[in-house]
């Protein structure tokens, strides 16, 4: 086991405990940045998709994992981000302006709906967020001249300082753009968690009554979390719009919302890393299934005729995690790492007392 001797408070305040850890993060970023040179178009497109899902996952994680509120309507914020960005760009606004505005629009809308919604909790809040779909659908139809209505809208090519960042014409640049956004948001998110704002989120999640007694304005804190969450999800929506190219509101269905919830719960509630683990899983499972289908048909077994196979596999994975590993993929990873670090001293029941559920999952 590695023991870090801390010599100043900064060692606790800093994002990384040691230079070693900084080295690992730099290496990971370097590999991610070099990916366009390492893999082909197809896998690069998949990696881009995973990054966008991780971004949206971080958005929802702030809310579900760190503030303990469930939202079934987060696809609505993806939609607001995607539409705002595409509509502004179609009106001639450059991407560097339209993109932050898309996040801001989704964030403000989120904070606005949050003010009445955050007074509810658990299942009531979850149901209230479902209404968001209806609002967004209505908005898209009412604002047909800018949103394209039912017909849909084209997210134009991204140009930054005369350089093309188009998803089809310059996929490697589009990938780097997504990577930069994800890296920045991750950094901001990690900062938030080590500062008073992040602590107030956790306080509201774990004990509302003590949060109040410590002077936390619970309503305002929840609205802030909702706003930040929907803002980041809006940014992901804008990128998703560009990734897809041409879309209408049907893209942002309840299934997307549910997939997002899967990303955060399977990935590991309450960990930034969980959003990434979850995003990898959610984008990889359909790939694995299609590979299985192909090999299956080679062997004369036709898996293609089984309806709802994806959904069934997701359901089994989710139930498995809730029963055996409430801390998600990331929690499991931490345990595997601890096992190796302690080898051969690790004991089977070492983590038994830690199997606790976040209040989010209990649905007060």
């Amino acid at each position, binding site marked *: 086991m590695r023991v870090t001797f801390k010599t100043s408070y900064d060692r606790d305040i800093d994002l990384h405990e040691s230079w070693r850890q900084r080295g690992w993060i730099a290496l990971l970023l370097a590999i991610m940045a070099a990916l366009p040179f390492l893999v082909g178009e197809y896998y690069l497109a998949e990696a881009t998709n995973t990054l966008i899902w991780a971004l949206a996952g971080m958005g929802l994680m702030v809310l579900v994992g760190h503030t303990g509120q469930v939202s079934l309507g987060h696809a609505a914020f993806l939609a607001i981000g995607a539409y705002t960005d595409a509509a502004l760009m179609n009106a001639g606004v450059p991407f560097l302006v339209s993109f932050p505005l898309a996040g801001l629009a989704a964030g403000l809308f989120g904070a606005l709906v949050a003010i009445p919604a955050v007074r509810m909790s658990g299942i009531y809040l979850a149901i209230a967020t479902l209404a968001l779909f209806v609002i967004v659908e209505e908005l898209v139809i009412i604002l047909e001249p800018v949103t394209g209505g039912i017909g849909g809208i084209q997210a134009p090519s991204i140009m930054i300082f005369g350089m093309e960042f188009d998803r089809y014409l310059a996929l490697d640049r589009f990938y780097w753009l997504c990577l930069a956004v994800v890296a920045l948001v991750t950094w901001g998110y990690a900062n938030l968690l080590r500062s008073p704002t992040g602590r107030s989120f956790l306080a509201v999640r774990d004990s509302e009554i*003590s949060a109040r*007694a410590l002077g936390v304005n619970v309503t305002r804190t929840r609205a802030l979390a909702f706003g930040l969450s929907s803002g980041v999800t809006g940014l992901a929506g804008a990128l998703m719009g560009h990734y897809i190219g041409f879309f209408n509101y049907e893209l942002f269905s309840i299934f997307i919302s549910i997939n997002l919830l899967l990303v955060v719960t399977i990935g590991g509630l309450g960990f930034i890393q969980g959003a990434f683990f979850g995003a990898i899983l959610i984008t990889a499972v359909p790939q694995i299934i299609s590979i299985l289908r192909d090999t299956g048909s080679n062997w004369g077994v036709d898996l293609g005729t089984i309806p709802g196979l994806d959904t069934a596999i997701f359901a089994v994975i989710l139930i498995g995690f809730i029963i055996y590993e409430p801390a998600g993929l990331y929690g499991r990873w931490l345990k595997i790492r601890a096992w190796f670090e302690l080898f051969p001293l690790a004991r089977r029941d070492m983590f038994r007392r830690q199997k606790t559920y976040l209040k989010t999952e209990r649905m007060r």
Partner: protein
Amino acid sequence: MSLLEVEDLAVHFGGVKAVDGVSFSVREGSVFSIIGPNGAGKSTIFNLISRIYRPTRGSIRFDGRDITRLAAHEVARLGIARTFQNIELFDHSTVLDNLLMGRHVHRRSNFIQDIFFTPKVRREEHIHRTRVEEVITFLELEAYRDKMIAGLPYGVRKVVEIGRALALGPRLILLDEPASGLSVEESREVAFWIEDMRRDMGLTVLMVEHDMSLVAQVSDHVLAVAEGRMLAQGSAAGVQADPDVRAAYLGTEAA
């Protein structure tokens, strides 16, 4: 001079008169204990002071200011901290983070500065950490600093909750049964801490406690309540000897 003045305080839940016309005043720098049988309304008095419940009648004044209509989160800012009878810690955070959460009323940065972790945020974190370390030293929590609450023994969690209240830097601290469930040695430590809080930190302590030896040891003033009403007030020995108080305790034991 009295720091906290409670007058004719009452709260009714439907037909239950949980607190019914209680008045007392707590002198600055003193230790004031409330005793009474189970269900007497002691915790409810705390919840009224920390504004979790809205009183049906009566008033609460802190440092000369009427706080009866304040929002719950505004009470802490005035310098009132509390613990809960059934420990209400942030279970998925470390001891250190729990104590840091006690510093919330002293935050000077907004969420945007937090996201960018500006130098100001770092400076503030240093100040919070220094204060929290003082609390850790005072309560001898060094060994648990980086441990998750969820895995800690009951006695330690109890102490962490007191620490979180102290980290706020309050003028008045409300302790709801600080010694319940603790071993004899642990209760003795609690008694020392309460005396230190008053003597060295200049705190005013309002405490609910069943352990009469602890109450007798640390209290300047004792109030006995039963079924929401006041029975007797005065010195620990005097209140214990009061026939009404004895009857109330015997009554619940017989029931």
